C-alpha cells in the first residue's frame, strides 16, 4: 500500500475571495524646525516602549574633498569615538549602559546617524545623539585605530566575488570621476593619506543642523518633544548646503565589451548587468518602480526570478533594483548562478530585458504589480523603524510631504506605455554594462 494512504485525501475548500482591502493609512507626522535650523519630523507610536531616530545630513562621500576620498566615511566611523564631554571609552560605556544603539551609515549623498533607544532612556539618548553630531573630537589615537580598521575592511571586502562584481559595475556606469562610481569607504591609498585635520574640517563644515533633518518615531512620552529637542540640540548650530556634483557621465559605452574577472575555482558566476537609472525625486520613479517590479523587483514572481530560478533552477535568487539618489543612480540586475551556466544565464537576462523593451507588459502583470505595491503600504509603515525609513526618503530626496499619501493614486495611473518607455530608456541591453566574476568559461582556458 502506498504511503499516500496513510492519511486520507481531504476535500478541497474553494479559494476564498478577499473582500475590500483596508485603506492604507500613512502616518501624519509633526513637522517643525528647531531654532538652530534642524528640521524635525516626528511620529508618535506609543505601544512598545522603544524610540527610533535618524539624523540625515548632506555629509556623504559626494562631499569628500577631491584629493581625499574616504573622508566622509572615516568621519562617520569616528563620530562615536569621543565628544567634548566624553572620551571614546566613556561615550561607548554610556551608550551601552543605556541599552541604546547608535550607528552611522555613510552613503554617497548623505550620512545618517541612527539611534535606537528604550523609551525610558529617551532624554539621555537624545543628549548623546546631539553630543555626537555636534562635538565629535576625533582623538588622534582613535583616528589611527579606525583608519587601520578601515584599511583591513577595504582589503577583506575584496575576498567576496559579489563585492568585486558590484565595484566593477558601478565603475562601468559612472567612471571614477563621479562620486557614484566610487565606494564611500574610499580607497586604500586615499584612506592611508587622510589627515586628521581634514576629518575635523569636514565634520565642522558638514555636520550642521540647518540643512539636516531629524526623523523620530515611537513612544515619545507625554512631554513636549519640541522643547526637549531644543534643549538637547541647543549647542549645535550653523548651516550646510548640499555638495556640488560633477556632470553625470553618459553611462556605459553602448554595446561595450563584456567585462570578465577571473575567479578561479569559484562555484558560481556573479553576474551584473547595469546602467544609468533615474533620480529618486523624478516623476518617472513611480512608473520605473512598477516596471522594475515586473522585471525583477519581485525576486520570485518577477520575470527574471520566474525564468532563472523557478524555471531553470540556475540560481538561488536574481533581482533588479533602481538605486535611489539625489542624481540618477544605478540600475542593476544582480545574481549568482552555477558557474557552468554563467553565459547561458547572462543570455537569458538579456533576453528578458529585450522582451521588456520590445513588448508591452500584460495588463494582468501591471495590475498585479500595482496592487502589490499599493497594498504593501501598511506593512511598510508598521514599525517605528520602518516609519523612520520611509520618511527619511521623503526628506532626503525632497519628495512632497504627501508623497506616501498620494503613492496609491500615482501607482494606479501608471500605464503600460509608460512602462515600455522606462524599459527603452533603462533596460535596453545595448545601453548596459555586463560584468561577470567567476571561473573562466570553458575554451578560454
Amino acid at each position, binding site marked *: 500500500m502506498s*504511503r*499516500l494512504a496513510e*492519511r*486520507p*485525501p481531504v*476535500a478541497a*475548500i474553494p*479559494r*476564498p475571495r*478577499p473582500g475590500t*482591502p*483596508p485603506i492604507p493609512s500613512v502616518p501624519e507626522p509633526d513637522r517643525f524646525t528647531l531654532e538652530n535650523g534642524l528640521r524635525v519630523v516626528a511620529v508618535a507610536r506609543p505601544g*512598545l*516602549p*522603544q524610540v527610533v531616530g535618524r539624523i540625515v545630513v548632506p555629509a556623504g562621500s559626494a562631499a569628500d574633498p577631491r584629493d581625499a576620498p574616504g573622508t566622509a566615511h572615516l568621519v562617520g566611523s569616528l563620530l562615536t569615538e569621543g565628544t567634548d564631554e566624553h572620551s*571614546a571609552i566613556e561615550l*561607548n560605556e554610556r*551608550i*551601552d*549602559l*543605556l*541599552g*541604546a*544603539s547608535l550607528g552611522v551609515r555613510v552613503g554617497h549623498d548623505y550620512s545618517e546617524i541612527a539611534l*535606537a533607544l*528604550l523609551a*525610558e532612556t529617551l532624554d539621555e539618548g537624545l543628549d548623546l545623539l546631539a553630543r555626537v553630531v555636534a562635538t565629535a573630537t576625533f582623538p588622534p589615537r582613535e583616528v589611527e585605530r579606525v583608519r*587601520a*580598521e578601515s*584599511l583591513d*575592511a577595504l582589503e*577583506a571586502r*575584496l*575576498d567576496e566575488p559579489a563585492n568585486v562584481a558590484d565595484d566593477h559595475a558601478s565603475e562601468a556606469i559612472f567612471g571614477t570621476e563621479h562620486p557614484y562610481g566610487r565606494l564611500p569607504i574610499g580607497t586604500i591609498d586615499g584612506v592611508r593619506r587622510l589627515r586628521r585635520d581634514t576629518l575635523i574640517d569636514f565634520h565642522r563644515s558638514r555636520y550642521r543642523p540647518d540643512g539636516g533633518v531629524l526623523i523620530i518615531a515611537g513612544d515619545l512620552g507625554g512631554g513636549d518633544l519640541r522643547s526637549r529637542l531644543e534643549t538637547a540640540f541647543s549647542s549645535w548650530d550653523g548651516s550646510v548646503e548640499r555638495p556640488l556634483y560633477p556632470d553625470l557621465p553618459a553611462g556605459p559605452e553602448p554595446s561595450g565589451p563584456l567585462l570578465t574577472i577571473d575567479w578561479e575555482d569559484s*562555484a*558560481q558566476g556573479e553576474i551584473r548587468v547595469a546602467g544609468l537609472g533615474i533620480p529618486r525625486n523624478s516623476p518617472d520613479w513611480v512608473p520605473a518602480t512598477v516596471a522594475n517590479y515586473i522585471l525583477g523587483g*519581485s525576486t*520570485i*514572481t518577477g520575470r527574471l526570478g*520566474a525564468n532563472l*530560478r*523557478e524555471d*531553470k*533552477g540556475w*540560481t*538561488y*535568487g536574481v533581482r533588479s533594483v533602481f538605486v535611489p539618489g539625489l542624481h540618477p543612480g544605478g540600475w542593476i540586475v544582480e545574481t*549568482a548562478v*552555477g558557474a557552468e551556466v554563467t553565459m547561458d544565464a547572462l543570455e537569458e537576462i538579456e533576453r528578458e530585458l529585450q522582451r521588456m523593451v520590445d513588448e508591452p507588459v500584460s495588463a494582468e502583470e501591471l*495590475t*498585479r504589480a500595482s*496592487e*502589490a505595491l499599493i*497594498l*504593501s*503600504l*501598511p*506593512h511598510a509603515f*508598521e514599525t517605528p*523603524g520602518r516609519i523612520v525609513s520611509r520618511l527619511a526618503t521623503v526628506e532626503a530626496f525632497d519628495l512632497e510631504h504627501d508623497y506616501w499619501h498620494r503613492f496609491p493614486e500615482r501607482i494606479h495611473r501608471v500605464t503600460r506605455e509608460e512602462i515600455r518607455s522606462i524599459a527603452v530608456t533603462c533596460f535596453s541591453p545595448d545601453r548596459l554594462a555586463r560584468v561577470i566574476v567567476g571561473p573562466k568559461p570553458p575554451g578560454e582556458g
Partner: protein
Amino acid sequence: MRSTFKPLSLPHSSSTLPNGLRVVVHEDTTSPIVAVHLMYHAGSKDERVGRTGLAHLLEHLLFEGSENCPKGEFDRLLERVGGTNNGSTWLDRTNYYEVVPSHAVELALWLERERMGHFLPVLDSEMLDVQRSVVINERKQVYENRPYGLAHEKLHELLFPPDHPYSWPTIGYTPDLEAMTLEDARDFYSRYYAPDNAVLVLAGDVSESEGFELANRYFGDLQASGVRERAATNGHVAEGRATELEDRVSFPRIYYAYAVPPFGTNEWIHLDVLSYLLADGESSRLQRSLIRDHELAQDVDTYLHPTELAGIFGIEATARSGVGPDRLRVAVDEVVEQIADGGVTDAEVVGAIRRVRRDHLNSLANVEERAEELAYASTVLSSAGRLEELLNAYATVEAEDVQRVAQTYLGVENRATVVVVPGGEDEPIG
C-alpha cells in the same frame, strides 16, 4: 545599581483543535495587517545521516504549488493582495508565514491548508530536480562561494558526534542533496506535515473569536498523523576539538562553539546576558579588549542559539592585519577567564539586559516576528505563554548568574574550535 524594567506583555489566547493543531491568536489593531504563521516541529534534526538537507529541500518544494493552487499561483495570489510570504528551515523547526492586509487572512489560511493537506499529489520528479538545483546553488552562493562560508558547518561537526542531529548543516551536504528521492520527500512530509505536529499563530488585526473560527474552518478537517518518534539525542563530545580550514580570505578568523543548556532554561537566559555583555556594544568586554585596547581584531561577535536539544553558544573574531590566529585565541580566552574568575559588575549586567530588551522590542515591533516568537515558544517550549515569561525573566538576572554560567559552560574542554586561515600565497605573517 538595579534598574527596573516595566514588564512586556503579549496578550494572546491558545487553543488546540481536536486534530491536535495548536492555535494561538494575538490581537493587535495598530496596523490593518495580520501575520499568519505555521510552524512545523520538524527541522534538520529530524533528518538522517545520508539524507541531510531534506527538511530544507522540502520547504523549497512546498512553495511549488499544490493540488488546487498551481505552481506560481501561490506567490501571485499573495502578491495581488499586497501580502508577503516566506519560509525557513532550521535545526528544530520549519516555518511558513504570510503577512497580509486584514482582508486577505482567509487567503493566507487557505494557502497553508493547501500546503498541509494538498501537496503530495503534485510532488513530482521535475519539481524535485529544479528545486534540488536551486538548493545546490543556494549552498554554493551562501556557503561555498562566500569567504569563511563553511566554518559553521565544520564547527558543528566538531561540536557534536556524527550521529547527533545538530552535527550536520541545515542546507545539507551536496552528495546527500544529489541522492534525495521523491520517496524521501514523501516520507518526511507524511510524517511531519500534520496538524498534530504544527502550531498556527494569527497575530495582528484579527479578533480572537474570528481567529479560532477561521483556524477551525481551514484546518479542522485535516487528519492527525499520530505520534512521531523523535531522533535520539546523544550528548555532545566537543572535548576541546579543534581544526584549521584554509579559505580564500585575507585575514584569519577564529570560531568557538559550546554546547550549553537548551532554550527555555534559566541558565540559557543567563548565557544570553553573558553573550551581550561579552560582545554587544563597543564597551562590551570582548570588543573593548580585542578591538579597542589591544587592536587584535577587526570584529568580534557572540551568539546563543535558542535550540531545543542543547543551546549553542558561539564566539567568533577576525584578526587585524599582521595578527595571527593564536594571539587572537589567547586574547579571547583571557577575557572569558576574567569573567569566570573575577565576575562582572552590576552596571555591565544592567546595560546588557537593556540591550537584550532593545533587540526584543525591535523584533516585537512587527507582527511577523511576534507571530514567529509565539510560534517558536509554542513549538519548542510547548506553550506560547512561556515567551512572555522568558522576556521578563531577564530583569532578575544578577552578576553572579552571569559569572556562574561562564565558569560552568565556557571551559576549553567544552568547546569546538575552527580556525580559518588564508590559503594560497598571500598568507600574512602570523
